[in-house]
């Protein structure tokens, strides 16, 4: 039967038909208008500060047009491909990317650093990466039709992930006190960013496959009922990886992100709060150990507890960020009008990577910050909705994990900016400067869009596991 073999091959049945995506178009129009307004406000502020004359023109119209055109093309591509994917994700991401682009326009262009960066300027490099990101999102959304390659090779994915991690451990270069960057020739990137996506893919596959085991069984250790071995083993591995990241890479944010995503996915898969509690206990133990053992952790935590104790030394960044928020107040100072430079230097160091929220907080005020947090919530909500209406466990867990990766990362860095948790060096998704971050988050959103397609073929029937490993596990916990 031709239909049966086609289904077995995992291909879509039926011809491709372009479909109108009205909601996406409407939202994109709003996004475009907002970005134009923002750009004009920035340009006008610049003009007034320079010579007092009012000139209502966007700052660098060329970049704005290129960016909006890219968003339009992405929309058009999805329309032509006729996929029934989520219509809110692309506009939300587009808006965040646009705000990030405006921020990079506003900051001094010399912050880019490398020789390549200096020729294009901060905004130019960011635009380049944004274009690449939009392309990645669109390609993934259109081309990815089956998830077999994701669900079947989970151990391969795990191996690739560990490999990337080891690569960064060994070849990592230091930037801002964290060993994150790997340089191959002229190109430098942060492999840890991609690692989080791979981790989610692996976890989704693993947890969905072992879900019944994890829910029903538990290991007996004497009189205690602990979570079962298939949970404890990967949890300890995750904990070790996180600890390793803290120790070797000195990247607190990534470690926290990985562990938090793992715990959240475990909870969603099993609905057993006990697992989360065990995990949290391990986290606290690890945190205390890290604090006692490592100087760099101690510095961050002490600065978090009282940055005003050393406002011109260790606490300088955090104090200046808080002062920036305070200067913003409710309405902000206006794009381009804040961040007073003393002696030509911006008050907050590493503002384009670590503290974009502080800059936006000052210039857009509490109203603007709340709006930006709202947009992140929107992305999370769409991801969770895709998870809730997913056809099977693997897709649900994958979608949850992807949504978490963006949401929890945004939370961690925003909380660090606001002194709610110690500052970490991770980026604010889609807004911070940095190609690796944009690329990794683009993969996340692209996969989410692919998962959200309502017309794609249903998942394969649940496979009876034949593997020896699985039989071993079953026997050990039965």
């Amino acid at each position: 039967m031709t239909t049966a073999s086609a289904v077995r091959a995992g291909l879509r049945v039926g011809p491709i038909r372009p479909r109108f995506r009205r909601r996406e178009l409407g939202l994109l129009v709003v996004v475009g208008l907002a970005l134009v307004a923002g750009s004009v406000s920035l340009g006008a502020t610049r003009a007034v500060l320079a010579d007092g004359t009012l000139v209502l023109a966007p700052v660098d119209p060329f970049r704005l047009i290129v960016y909006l055109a890219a968003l339009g093309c992405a929309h058009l591509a999805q329309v032509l491909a006729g996929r029934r994917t989520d219509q809110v994700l692309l506009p939300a991401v587009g808006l965040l990317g646009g705000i990030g682009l405006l921020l990079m326009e506003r900051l001094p262009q010399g912050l880019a650093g490398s020789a390549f960066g200096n020729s294009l300027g901060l905004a130019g490099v960011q635009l380049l990466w944004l274009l690449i990101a939009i392309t990645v999102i669109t390609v993934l959304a259109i081309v990815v039709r089956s998830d077999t390659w994701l669900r079947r090779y989970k151990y391969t994915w795990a191996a690739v992930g560990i490999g990337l991690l080891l690569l960064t451990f060994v070849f990592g270069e230091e930037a801002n006190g964290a060993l994150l960057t790997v340089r191959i020739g002229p190109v430098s990137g942060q492999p840890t960013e991609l690692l989080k996506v791979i981790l989610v893919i692996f976890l989704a596959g693993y947890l969905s496959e072992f879900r019944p085991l994890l829910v029903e069984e538990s290991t007996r250790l004497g009189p205690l009922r602990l979570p079962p071995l298939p949970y404890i083993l990967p949890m300890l591995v995750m904990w070790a990886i996180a600890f390793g990241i803290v120790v070797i890479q000195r990247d607190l944010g990534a470690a926290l992100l990985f562990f938090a995503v793992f715990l959240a996915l475990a909870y969603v898969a099993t609905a057993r709060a006990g697992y989360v509690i065990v995990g949290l206990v391990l986290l606290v133990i690890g945190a205390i150990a890290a604090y006692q053992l490592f100087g760099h952790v101690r510095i961050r935590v002490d600065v978090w507890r009282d940055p005003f104790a050393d406002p011109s030394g260790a606490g300088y960044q955090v104090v200046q960020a808080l002062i920036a928020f305070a200067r913003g107040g409710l309405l902000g100072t206006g794009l381009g009008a804040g961040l007073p430079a003393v002696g030509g230097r911006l008050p907050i160091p590493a503002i384009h990577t670590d503290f974009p929220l502080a800059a936006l907080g000052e210039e857009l005020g509490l109203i603007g910050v709340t709006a930006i947090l709202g947009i992140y919530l929107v992305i999370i909500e769409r991801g969770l909705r895709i998870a809730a209406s997913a056809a099977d466990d693997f897709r649900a867990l994958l979608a949850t994990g992807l949504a978490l990766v963006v949401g929890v990362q945004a939370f961690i860095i925003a909380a660090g900016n606001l002194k709610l948790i110690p500052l970490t060096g991770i980026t604010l998704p889609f807004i911070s400067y940095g190609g690796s971050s944009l690329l990794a988050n683009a993969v996340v959103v692209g996969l989410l869009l692919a998962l959200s397609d309502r017309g794609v073929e249903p998942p394969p029937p649940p496979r009876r596991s034949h593997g020896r490993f699985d039989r071993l596990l079953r026997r050990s916990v039965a």
Partner: protein
Amino acid sequence: MTGRRGGGPPVATPIGRGVVRLGIVLLVSFAVLAAGAGYWQVVRSADLVGRPDDPLLIAAARNVVRGVIRDRDGHVLATSKKDANGEPYRVYPSRSVAPVVGYASRLYGTAGLERAYDAELTGIRPPDPIDELLAKFSANRYRPQDLTLSLSLDLQREAVRLLGANRGSVVMLDPRSGEVLAMASTPTYDASAIANPDTAKAAFASVSNDPDKPFLDRAVQGRYVPGSVFKIVTSIAALGSGAITPATRYARQPPAEKNGLLVSGYRVRDGHHPFTGSRQLAYAEAVEVSCNIYFALTGLETGGDALTSWAAKVGFGAPIPFDLPTVASQVTNGGGSYGGGFSDDVELANAAYGQGETLATPLQMALVAAAVANRGTLMKPHLVTRLSGADGATTIGPEVWRQVVSPDVAAEINAAMVRAVEGQEGRLFTAGAKVPGVPTAGKSGTAQLTGSAAPHSWFIGFAPANDPQIAIAVLVESGGSGTTRASPIAGRLMARYLASVGK
């Protein structure tokens, strides 16, 4: 309980529920973030903006014409001039107010009131939140405010003149309102030279290298052994706690006048024996002749805990809340186990008459006099009485700080202090302090220092004693006995003030 759901062997709960719960957790987390942002951007906004390390202040300070600072009679204490490039710089007409008003210099930042009220003088912080909002919409969003001080330039100048070449300090305040009328610290310095960009470097270097430390505002930052003026604090503690009454006499006191009072092997000595012979003194006479032994015994009677806690009521033990930064005066270094932080009874006995480990700032001692003068009610000291700008004016009025002792006790101390200035024996210790024609109250002090330096000369007092309008504390470093320098300065300044207000 197993559910029947498609998608594999059924498990206990569907994933959907976990997703929803996760969603709620994330929603709450982001709400917490928004609240956190609100906290820093709205709640703590006022006290973060206006910190000296706020770059906005630093950047704005360069080009804003700062507000004018005036004294109580309208004399200008600080104003701005424009230099050749049209950029403003500060000018201070009188050297005498330098420790109080400070300076605002492009190179060296700010000091004194120029620093404490930087945000108001540059206009970064407008008087009211609505104004703050509206100011965003105007081109000149910074509206500097002028300060009016309670200081009297005339008194300040005279105080500095009288202190002369000595290092020392004078603090005068109105005990009824807490307004500071004079706060002199010598040596002063030329703040204009520091503010002027042409002479800034040289002037700052010479002032910093001056061994007499002109930058130190001795009135609020200098801690000195108080000597006998501290006996008023002991009086407050002893009479206030009821350890003694004004009629208390000690049998041990007269014999100890000759050979000294033995306290745990330490001898407390005294110097008024020729005047009082073997009379047992009551409270008022003990104050009049400044009897160390009487007060040592009183201190032991009162106990360390009471002495420390009553002294704290009048301001000891913590920095005094004031327009300028102050340091805390102390009754003891603390850490001892005797009671109140004293290490033993010897230290307590010595502290009770103002030696031991007691240290006081001139402002603190002026507050002691003010508390007694104002019937036991201590008013909060303040310098700035009015902030005025393009958007209106704010007045800062008197504020009650504490009720230190009851009016009856204050009256007793008041009477004793009057005897110390006007009594037969008293006037020998406070020569020059009396204001002619006006009942004057006071106490002098000769603070012995370790080593060979001359003792500090102190005087605290108020006038007129029956209706006090001015309280004063004078300190002359190593000025000799209390009579030598401090008392006459105090008398002349009080007289000058009372004459100026028509008494």
